[in-house]
């Protein structure tokens, strides 16, 4: 036992819910969003009930407390991913906004017509559409690292693309469809050799294993709180100080300024330069509580627990007829996407739901990847720190029912 699973599960009120008559919830959809422990909910309640105030600009007790709590959250989150300075941590709404911030402020300034961006075929739309928009606007070129049959990036293709001298490389640390964990550190070393800036989409990595942005030497790193047992409405962009300093502001308004006259303004210092308007204060505090929660269990333990679950699931699923798993590689997180012959994933998910098993069905915001494999949608089961092998048994039982109904 890596940790006391029953004790952990008791922290998550939703896991006790009878979701369908006679069926408790088996939540296998944490890749979409994670459930929240009472500790995270309590941290936000405590803020609202005892300390709520607007920050940075007030001198009364509540404003001082709220400001300290908000900036302490930045410290804690920065330490969690091993950032060097707290001011390298920019608060956003989600991974998507973090990536857009880079595209629309750093990208619009530093990428010129004809410049090349390298992405991969396994990107989430959030790490695809912002670059398409920018490419359209600034006449950039996009090239894609292909994905092999086993769901792994074709690194030889990556190396060839690097020879074309890209200005930016952007890829996800872990795929939300295939579960593949990409060799980020090596990919960044190679990209830096040709002088490219690297953005890593960490939406699926930060929640699931220990991330050290300094060791990775990532230039930008983006992730969301809601996938790491934290609140909705909160995301993070890490950026190296020198790069963020050179990047113009994104959203304009209160707090991101040093001085405003009618016709001009002077931007504030990092990190405030990128945080305009009243920020998500309660959410920052909730995310800090999520970091505390994850660290108390230990990211290594979480990663190992998920590893055990995914192998248990592989084993069990191999006995289910008509089922085909995508991306059976080994260096992976707790995500399994599959197809059932002749049954649409929506129907699979709906039938599983009727026995209390929550999985996702669809393109998982990765249409090009599905396109590549010639399918419109898959069913996805994903695991997190609170999942159990018996929930996987229930998944398998549900899939047998699917086979019964559609046979």
């Amino acid at each position: 036992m890596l940790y006391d699973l029953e004790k952990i599960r008791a922290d998550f009120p939703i896991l006790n819910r009878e979701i369908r008559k006679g069926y408790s919830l088996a939540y296998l959809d944490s890749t979409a969003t994670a459930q929240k422990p009472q500790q995270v909910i309590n941290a936000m309640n405590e803020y609202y009930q005892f300390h709520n105030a607007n920050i940075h600009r007030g001198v009364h007790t509540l404003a001082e407390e709220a400001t300290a709590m908000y900036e302490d959250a930045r410290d804690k989150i920065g330490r969690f991913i091993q950032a060097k300075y707290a001011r390298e941590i920019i608060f956003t709404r989600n991974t998507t906004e973090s990536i857009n911030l880079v595209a629309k402020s750093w990208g619009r300034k530093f990428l010129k017509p004809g410049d090349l961006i390298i992405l991969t075929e396994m990107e989430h739309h959030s790490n695809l559409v912002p670059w398409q928009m920018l490419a359209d606007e600034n006449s950039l070129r996009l090239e894609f690292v292909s994905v092999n049959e086993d769901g792994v990036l074709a690194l030889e293709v990556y190396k060839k693309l690097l020879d074309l001298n890209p200005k930016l490389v952007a890829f996800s640390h872990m795929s939300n469809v295939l579960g593949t964990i990409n060799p980020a550190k090596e990919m960044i070393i190679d990209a830096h050799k040709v002088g490219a800036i690297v953005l890593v989409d960490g939406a699926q990595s930060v929640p699931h294993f220990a991330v050290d942005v300094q060791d990775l030497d990532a230039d930008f790193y983006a992730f969301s709180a809601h996938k790491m047992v934290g609140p909705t409405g909160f995301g993070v962009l890490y950026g190296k100080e020198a790069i963020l300093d050179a990047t113009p502001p994104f959203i304009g308004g209160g707090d991101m300024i040093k001085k405003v006259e009618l016709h001009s303004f002077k931007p504030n210092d990092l990190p405030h330069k990128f945080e305009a308007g009243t920020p998500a204060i309660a959410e920052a505090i909730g995310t800090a509580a999520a970091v505390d929660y994850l660290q108390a269990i230990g990211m290594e333990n979480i990663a190992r627990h998920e590893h055990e679950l995914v192998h248990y699931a592989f084993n069990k699923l191999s006995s289910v007829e008509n089922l085909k798993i995508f991306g059976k590689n080994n260096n992976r997180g707790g995500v399994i996407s599959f197809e059932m012959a002749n049954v649409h994933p929506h129907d699979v998910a709906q039938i599983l739901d009727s026995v209390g098993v929550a999985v996702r069905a669809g393109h998982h915001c990765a249409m090009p990847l599905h396109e590549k494999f010639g399918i419109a949608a898959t069913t996805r089961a994903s695991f997190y720190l609170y999942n159990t092998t018996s929930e996987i048994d229930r998944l398998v039982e549900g899939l047998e029912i699917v086979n019964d109904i559609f046979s």
Partner: protein
Amino acid sequence: MDDFYRELIVDRYKNPQNKGELENSNFSYEDENPLCGDHIRIDLITNDQNIITDAKFSGHGCAISQASADLLLEIVIGKPLEEVKSISKETILELLGIELGPVRLKCALLSLKVLKAGIYGVGDLDHELKEI
């Protein structure tokens, strides 16, 4: 388990009665559900009096979207184009005989959306569904 997958739905999904394409259709519309990539195309043949004499759907999707397309076309064949306007969300749900949440509702209504958007112009159904 509940009766979600009523026999009718699975049956219509496996053995649709109005699936196919019409070579000499007067109208042909298509659209997709952005949430899942499901795609439906509807071909219609109308006569001089604007009565729908034949209709077929093609594309891919889940049992709900396929069955509801199949059932929808069954009730429009023989009707004047004008009458399609009166087909509502409720009509479709009655045909299917089940209750649906907002996400699956989109599956069930995709064919109706395609049909109405084609006949009356894009957006019309959206108005009807989402107006406050």
